């Protein structure tokens, strides 16, 4: 089963290798990649073929977004990167000790205040109480939640919950930051604000970002590079460099060059779909 489907998708894999050209063009830095997928395939025990021979790098200072239809294995990519799941074949190279991971849901612990939620990961890492309180305070400032430290999750709006979730990951000062469709559930306006927030964090912290979304606008707005993924099994069918400088103003979304790039990505997505 694995054999056949891998063979069937080999043309697509070769499409993915076109990436080498673009990343070669801009990845002139000698730094090793912060995150590297090498021929990663994933077949779940129930036979679902989620990923097929996916290969790509995320370099330090790069913000890569994977955009694709629901159920194309985008999230699986992150689960493999973080070690939550093991790839069926292929390998992942990443330093997991400083990995940030923002989930689809905020996954806050309902019985903890914002402050204590943000402290959680540091607490699990055994960071002393005072030190983690300080770090959590900084992270809370950074995501704009100052004043809400003592609130419980049930008192927060969806956007505020995601901010808390962001802050929680920031506490460990991640060098690689994984985002699994974090803003899928919030309204459009909140999503745009949170996008600004992510960009400002990216600029300030300089992590390598890998962001999953099915919003083309969000993908293009946030990233230095957009990968287009197709479904069943998931594989990369397009690789686009995003040329706009940071910081990116919200108005960027209305510029022709932006729209054009969105169009290209959209076209690639549709091609992958049919």
């Amino acid at each position, binding site marked *: 089963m694995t054999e056949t489907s891998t063979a069937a998708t080999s043309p697509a894999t070769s499409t993915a290798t076109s990436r080498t050209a673009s990343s070669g063009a801009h990845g002139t830095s000698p730094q090793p990649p912060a995150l590297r997928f090498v021929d990663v395939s994933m077949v779940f025990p129930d036979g679902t073929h989620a990923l097929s021979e996916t290969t790509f790098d995320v370099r330090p200072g790069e913000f890569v977004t994977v955009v694709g239809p629901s159920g194309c294995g985008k999230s699986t990519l992150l689960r493999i990167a*973080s*070690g*939550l799941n093991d790839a069926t074949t292929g390998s992942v190279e990443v330093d997991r000790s400083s*990995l940030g*991971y923002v*989930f*689809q*849901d905020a*996954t806050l*612990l*309902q*019985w*903890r205040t914002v402050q204590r939620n943000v402290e*959680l*990961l540091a*607490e*699990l*890492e055994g960071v002393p109480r005072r030190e983690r309180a300080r770090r959590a305070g900084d992270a809370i400032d950074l995501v704009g939640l100052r004043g809400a430290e*003592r*609130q*419980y*999750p*049930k*008192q927060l709006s969806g956007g505020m919950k995601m901010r808390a979730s962001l802050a929680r990951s920031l506490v460990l000062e991640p060098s690689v930051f994984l985002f699994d469709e974090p803003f899928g559930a919030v309204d459009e306006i909140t999503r745009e604000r949170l996008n600004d927030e992510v960009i400002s964090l990216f600029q300030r912290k300089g992590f390598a970002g890998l962001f999953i979304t099915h919003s083309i606008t969000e993908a293009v707005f946030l990233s230095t590079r957009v990968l287009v993924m197709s479904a069943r099994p998931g594989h990369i069918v397009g690789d686009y460099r995003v040329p706009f400088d940071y910081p990116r103003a919200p108005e960027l979304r209305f510029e022709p060059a932006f729209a054009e790039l969105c169009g290209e990505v959209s076209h690639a997505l549709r091609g992958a779909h049919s």
Partner: protein
Amino acid sequence: MTIINSAGVGTDLGMSLTPPDAAVDQFGVAPDRKRRRRLAWSRVLGPVLVFVVFVAVWHWMHTDGMRTLFNRPGFLIPAPETVINDSFVEPRARAALFNGIKWTAYIALIGLAITIVVGMILAIIMAQARAVENSIYPYLVAIQAIPILAIVPVIYSMFGGGLIPRILVCVLISIFPIVTNTLFGLQSADRGQHDLFTLRGANRFTRLVKLQLPAAMPNIFTGFRISAGLSVIGAVVGEQFFRAGSKPGIGIVLESYRQKGIYPQVFGCLILAAGLGIIVFLLFGLLSKVVVGHWHESGRSTR
């Protein structure tokens, strides 16, 4: 039940005894004051009205009801005032009744304490692996299903009479809800929250203490409350089978009055037993509100 829906925060009787949640007020999500006041009224006025109707019907049953409805003499249901007077004013009866309820409460509380400890440990063990859960669960259902009457000879052959078998019966009757609710609660943390702990390499113990147990608190308290009610029933049932002469529970006291045909005190015993049940229920409702009320929608969840 409309109380729950309209308030969103308040729920059962236990809630009405607690102050409003200050944290909720502060952030403006609390219901407006007016509605809250109306709710307070419905919580006080409603039960009072029902009580008045109940006493009226009771009184009528004594004067006419028994005769007209069942063609039986009215003294079989003594008037409320007679019950109060003969059971709680008359000193000897009062002493007997309160001695009875004291022993029942004693057994119920010891039984409940054991139930809580054993039940929670059992649930935590069961939560460790599906295989363990599957192995133990059928026997819990069995304990729940077997009539206590059937196990009495077994218990008797081991312990004879006395307090211990009464406590044991109490535990057997009340343990099921604690285990099931705690287990359900321990399994209620969502996958994302577990992933979070997995990512940081948390061990079983950390996961239990920092994730599963706190997540389970609302369910655990639900279990406490249901089991607390059952422990009172268990204490009364237990004393029926294992009569320890010098330590009669309220059930024994009731039975002895019934045999002598003294009905007012029989009803007095009923009132005391019911009162004990209500107090225990309220106590755990209050405790639940204090412990989880600030983060959970309510101290209550599904039964």
